[in-house]
C-alpha cells in the first residue's frame, strides 16, 4: 500500500502522521510529564485511568441508584410511602443499630398479585423471546447468506426502526391494530369479516408490540454469529451423505447456539421489565411486573414496596445474565484455544 510516488501523501496518512506528532509532543511536554509523575506517585497509571472511566460510570449510574433503591425498600411504609424515611443506621448508646425492615418483601410474597405479576411477566417475556427467535433466525440466516453487497443494506433495514422514537412506533401499532385501523378496514373490504376484530388492548397486540420492538436485538447477534460460519462445513456434511436440511440441523444450528443465547438474553431481559408496550397495546387485565411497579410508585405512591419490587426484579434478571456470562466465558476460552 506504500505510495509509489514519494511526494504523494494521502489524506489518511497525513492525518496519522499528524496525530503521531501531536501525541509525541504531548508526551514530551512538561505539564504531561509533571502530572503523569504526580499521578503515578499516588498509584494512578494510564491503564488504570482508562479502566476507571467505565467503573466510574457503573458506580454513578448503576451502583449508587441501586443502593438508594435498596435502602428505600428496607424503609417502613407509613400512611404515605414517600420520603422522608427513618434512617437505616442509627448510632445510640455506643451501639450501631441497623434497622432492616423486610416487611415490604414479605408483603410481596403474601400478596398473590405480585407473584402472579412476576410469573406472568416471565411468561410473556419467554413467549416473546420464542417468537423473536422463530422470526429472527430465518431473517438473520437469510441476511448472512445473501450476496455481501446486499448484507449491509439489509442490516440497515433491520436497524432502521431505531431511527424513530420507540414510543412513536408503539403508537403507530395502536393505529394499525385499532378498530378503524387499516388492518380491520382491509379485512372488511375483502369481506373476510363483517365486524372489526378487537385486536387493540389484547394480549395479541401486546405480543406483536414486544416481538416487533425487540426483533432487531435477536437478529443482530444471530447475524454476527451466522455470518462467521465456514460454509465448507455444510459441504463436508453433504459430502458425507447428509441431506441439506439435516446438515443445517446438525451443523449450523449447534454452531449458532452462542448467537441464539445472546439474542434470547437481549430480548428476554428487557421484555420481563417491559412497561410501555403492555400499557399501550395490552389489555387492562394484562399483569406485567413493570406495570405493577409503575402503579405502586405513581398511583399508590408506595415507594418502599415499589423499590422492593424493583430489587426482586433485578435479582430475577441478574441470574440469567450470570448464566449467560459464564457461557460466554467458556466460549471465548474455547475459541482462544482454537
Amino acid at each position, binding site marked *: 500500500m506504500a505510495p509509489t510516488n514519494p511526494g504523494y501523501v494521502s489524506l489518511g496518512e497525513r492525518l496519522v502522521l499528524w496525530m503521531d506528532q501531536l501525541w509525541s509532543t504531548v508526551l514530551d511536554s512538561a505539564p504531561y510529564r509533571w502530572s503523569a509523575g504526580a499521578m503515578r506517585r499516588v498509584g494512578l497509571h494510564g491503564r488504570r485511568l482508562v479502566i476507571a472511566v467505565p467503573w466510574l460510570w457503573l458506580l454513578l449510574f448503576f451502583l449508587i441508584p441501586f443502593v438508594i433503591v435498596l435502602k428505600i425498600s428496607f424503609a417502613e411504609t407509613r400512611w404515605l410511602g414517600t420520603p422522608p424515611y427513618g434512617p437505616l443506621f442509627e448510632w445510640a448508646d455506643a451501639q450501631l443499630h441497623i434497622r432492616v425492615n423486610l416487611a415490604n418483601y414479605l408483603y410481596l410474597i403474601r400478596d398473590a398479585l405480585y407473584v402472579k405479576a412476576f410469573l406472568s411477566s416471565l411468561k410473556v417475556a419467554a413467549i416473546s423471546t420464542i417468537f423473536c427467535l422463530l422470526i429472527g433466525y430465518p431473517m438473520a440466516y437469510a441476511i448472512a447468506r445473501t450476496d455481501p453487497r446486499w448484507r449491509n443494506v439489509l442490516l440497515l433495514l433491520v436497524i432502521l426502526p431505531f431511527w424513530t422514537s420507540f414510543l412513536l412506533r408503539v403508537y403507530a401499532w395502536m393505529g394499525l391494530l385499532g378498530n378503524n385501523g387499516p388492518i380491520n378496514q382491509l379485512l372488511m373490504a375483502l369481506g373476510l369479516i363483517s365486524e372489526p376484530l378487537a385486536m387493540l388492548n389484547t394480549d395479541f397486540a401486546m405480543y406483536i408490540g414486544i416481538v416487533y420492538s425487540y426483533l432487531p436485538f435477536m437478529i443482530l447477534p444471530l447475524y454476527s454469529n451466522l455470518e462467521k460460519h*465456514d460454509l*465448507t*462445513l455444510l*459441504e*463436508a*456434511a*453433504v*459430502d*458425507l*451423505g*447428509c*441431506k*441439506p436440511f*439435516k446438515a443445517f440441523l*446438525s*451443523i449450523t444450528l*449447534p*454452531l449458532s447456539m452462542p448467537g441464539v443465547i445472546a439474542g434470547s438474553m437481549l430480548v428476554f431481559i428487557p421484555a420481563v421489565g417491559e412497561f410501555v408496550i403492555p400499557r399501550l397495546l395490552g389489555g387492562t387485565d394484562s399483569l406485567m411486573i413493570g406495570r405493577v411497579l409503575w402503579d405502586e410508585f405513581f398511583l399508590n405512591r408506595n415507594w418502599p414496596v415499589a423499590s422492593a419490587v424493583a430489587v426482586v426484579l433485578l435479582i430475577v434478571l441478574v441470574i440469567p445474565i450470570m448464566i449467560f456470562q459464564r457461557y460466554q466465558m467458556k466460549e471465548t476460552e*474455547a475459541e482462544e*484455544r*482454537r
Partner: protein
Amino acid sequence: MASPMEERKAPWLDPDAAPYIRIEGISKKFGDFVAVADVTLNIYRGEIFCLLGGSGCGKTTLLRMLAGFERPTTGKIFIDGVDMSDVPPYDRPVNMMFQSYALFPHMTVEQNVAFGLKQEGLPKAEIASRVAEMLSIVKLEQFAKRKPHQLSGGQRQRVALARALVKRPKLLLLDEPLAALDKKLREHTQFELVNIQERLGVTFIVVTHDQEEAMTLASRIGVMNQGRIVQVGTPHDIYEFPNTRFVAEFIGNVNMFEGVILEDEPDHVLIESRELGGNIYVGHGVSTAPEAIVWTAVRPEKMVLSRTEPEDKNNRATGIIKEIAYMGDLSIYLVQLDSGKIVRVTQPNIYRHAEDQFTWDERVWVHWHHTANVVVTE
C-alpha cells in the same frame, strides 16, 4: 522418477482395461468465464491421479464437479459405470478431503469420523467398530475424545482423511491435502498417504499446485492450464517428455531455446538457434512444417559444464559463469552464453572438495547429449 505403482501395473497402457472413472467432455462456465473447458479423462481403479496446475486453472472446479457441488455445463461423469449427472452429492459414492479439512468444531474426533456412517443409518455397534478401525489406521486412537481445536495441524489432517475414508468411497477426492502442513511433516505424510491408499485400494484424485507433491504421490498426473488438460502421463513422462512449453516450464526447471528447423529428416532434426548461438541436433523426427519456429527444452541437470571443447559440434555453447549456488548435494550455475541468454546448469557434487571447481566469471563450455533434449512446437 518412476513410481512403484507404475512398475506394478499400468492399466492406462492396457487397451482392454475399463476405466473406473470416466470424465467425458466436461465443461463448466461461470457467466462468461470458462473454468473448465472440454476435459476428457479416464481414471483407473486404484490410481492416485493428480490434477496439477496453477491457481485458477480449473482443477478445483473439476474436483467440485466430481463431488457434485457444481453441475457441469456440458459433459458427463461416470463412476464405476454409473452416470453421475443427476446424483446429488449426498448420494455419490465419492468423499472429499477438504483443503481446510472442514472438521466439525463442535464434535469430537470420534463423532467427526462417525458422522458419515450415521447418515447411512448403520447399527451403532458397526459404526463404533468401523470408526475405531479407521482411527487406528490413521493412528489417532488416543485422540478419539478430543475436539478438533485440541489437535495439531497434522492430526487434523488425519482426522479429515479418516472421516472421508471411513465411508469406503469408490473415489476419494483430496483438495491440496498437504498444503496446510509444514515441510517436514509434509514429506512424512506424503508417504503415509500412499501407504493408506495402497492398503485400502481406494481410487484417489488429488488436486495440487505443488509439482513435488504430485510427483511423489501420483501414478499419473494431469497438467491443467486455463481449464484444459494439457498433458496426461506418469510423473516420468511429464518430466522427461513434456509436450508443450507450458508443461516443460511448469514442472521443474528448464532451459528453453527458440530456433528454426534447418534439416527435417525422419531420424533426426537440426535446429538453428540464435539463442544458443549454434545448432541443436535432435535424435528423432519432429512433425512440423519446415522453417517453423520450435523450442528445445533441456533440463539443467542434463547439461554439462567443461573447460575443454566438446567433440560434438552441435548442442553446445560457450559462456561465463555469473552465479553459483552451493546446495550441498548439488551446485547450481547460472551461465551467460555469448548470445546473451542465461542458462541454468546443475552439477552434482560428487567429490567433497574438487581443487579445480568452476568459479565466478570463468569461461566454460556448456553442452548436452542429443538424447537429453525435447522439442516442443507450442
